[in-house]
């Protein structure tokens, strides 16, 4: 009996490596099969219905906060990242580049509820307010103002929220309200001195390029998010380019007055351009702040950006 048991035990031990090999093969084959099936399912999945994709959020900010069980910071992070992904996904589907403050064409109907929930769940989370102030006005300006004002109520000491609200009013052309908001923000402890100066400048010359330059320079300096920084940098390039194009138009007028016709190419006006110490490319064309050459338009009587330029056209 003992001998029989021992024989069974020995036979079992001899079979063990074989069993292990069979199990490994089954596991590898199984993985290969279910990965292939997953690929097959993905490739045949019907496109998501736009109406379903853009469905309103299930939870309001208040409900999400109530259900958070103390994990509200984490939930706010989740909604914040969802906002970024939502906008990022829509931008990626576009054939051309768009500016972060000009996304009205993207139909971002979920952005306001997403940012609203993130800031309701964690009212001290300042980044979503910044995003609401910069991105939301081109989608829903009333919501942008409401969310930013709510941010000021929840964080009365945060001068940057006044900067954001002032920016929204400035974009809408309401320079008086913008000036007032900058003035209120300037009174807060820790607010930089330029807030006071911005208030005065906004009241005096709200629609000028100088104010715009000041706004985007400050935004570039203060922004924590790289995409916001990039947007401010491109807007500053645009302002530089507007100034440059004004100068180039004067050059063209000067050339026209002298030669009796507009230049057929930049080479013809090269002498004047060189006296201005302008950066030119190999063809002699002056280059814009992104390094692309300016184009002569309207039979050489006007100047415009090159289609490949990184300077925003609008």
């Amino acid at each position: 009996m003992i001998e029989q048991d021992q024989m069974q035990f020995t036979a079992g031990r001899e079979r063990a490596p074989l069993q292990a090999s069979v199990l490994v093969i089954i596991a590898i084959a199984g993985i290969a099969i279910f990965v292939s099936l997953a690929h097959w399912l993905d490739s045949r999945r019907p496109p998501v219905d736009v109406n379903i994709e853009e469905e309103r959020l299930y939870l309001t900010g208040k409900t999400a906060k109530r259900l958070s069980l103390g994990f509200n910071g984490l939930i706010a992070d989740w909604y914040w990242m969802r906002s970024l992904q939502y906008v990022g996904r829509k931008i990626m589907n576009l054939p051309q580049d768009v500016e972060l403050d000009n996304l009205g064409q993207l139909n971002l109907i979920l952005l306001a509820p997403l940012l609203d929930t993130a800031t309701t769940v964690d009212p001290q989370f300042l980044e979503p307010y910044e995003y609401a102030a910069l991105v939301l006005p081109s989608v829903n300006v009333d919501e942008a103002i409401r969310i930013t004002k709510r941010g000021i109520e929840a964080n009365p000491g945060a001068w940057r929220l006044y900067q954001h609200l002032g920016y929204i009013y400035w974009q809408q052309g309401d320079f008086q309200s913008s000036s007032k908001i900058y003035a209120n923000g300037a009174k807060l402890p820790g607010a930089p001195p330029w807030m006071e100066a911005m208030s005065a400048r906004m009241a005096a010359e709200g629609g000028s390029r100088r104010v715009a330059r000041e706004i985007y320079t400050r935004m570039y300096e203060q922004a924590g998010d790289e995409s916001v920084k990039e947007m401010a940098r491109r807007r500053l390039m645009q302002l530089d380019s507007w100034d440059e194009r004004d100068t180039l138009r004067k050059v063209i007028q000067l050339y026209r007055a002298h030669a009796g016709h507009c230049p057929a190419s930049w080479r013809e006006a090269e002498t004047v351009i060189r006296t201005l110490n302008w950066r030119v490319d190999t063809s002699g064309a002056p280059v814009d702040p992104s390094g692309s050459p300016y184009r002569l338009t309207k039979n050489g009587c006007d100047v415009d950006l090159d289609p490949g330029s990184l300077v925003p056209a609008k």
Partner: protein
Amino acid sequence: MFRIFAIARNAFREAVRDRVLYNLVLFVLLLTAVAIFIGELSGGQERKIIVDLGLSAMLLFGVFIAIFVGVGLVYKEIERRTVYAIFAKPVGRGEFLIGKYLGLCLTLLVNVVIMGTGLSLALIYVGGGWEPLALRIWPAVLLIYVELAVLTGVALLFSSFSSPALSALLTFFIFIIGHFSADLKSLAASTGNIGARWLFSALYYLLPNLANYSYITPAAHGQVPALTQSIVAILYGGFYTTVILAIALLVFSRRNFK
């Protein structure tokens, strides 16, 4: 006193031998590492998200440890009949229960300290050098620990008279209701019915107000709780747990093991 510490040490050893604990600690450390990569999707909010995720994971896994290990502390001894061997020695039921409680609290302390250290290191790593948040999270970690200690007491109370499954369920409900305390209070204030008002008021005061220990979100913004408020919250937790353990002992001392 020595006997209590002996039981606590054994309870700690038993918990440490339980591989689930190691897995949980490892998982939280991994989660913190993952947080570093999630942070890159967050538009420059890496630190906040790492703190939110790390502290939330610390609380959540701590709750699981407190519940699932806590409810088995007494039950396992009875089920394996080792309780007879223990009570055959000069060990009182009170000493046994408090020793078990302290043993699990020690286990949770070790867990929380390891998780907190991992989180601080992750913050220093992300900051590329010294990061003030790495220190500022510790008051929140302390409050999480007090919350876990209260929950352990609750788990022990339920396990002193109920089965592990039911005890785990009831303790989990207490964890959820404990975070809805403010709603109980507002319900009590808003209802017109005097009986209902008394009921909600009684529930508000009798159930642990775990919202006192919710400091994860402000900690992620670099805020530190007020010292007085923290001390009072810790005292509240201490007294609440004392009462819970006293009730557990009352039930346990009357329990017949035959």
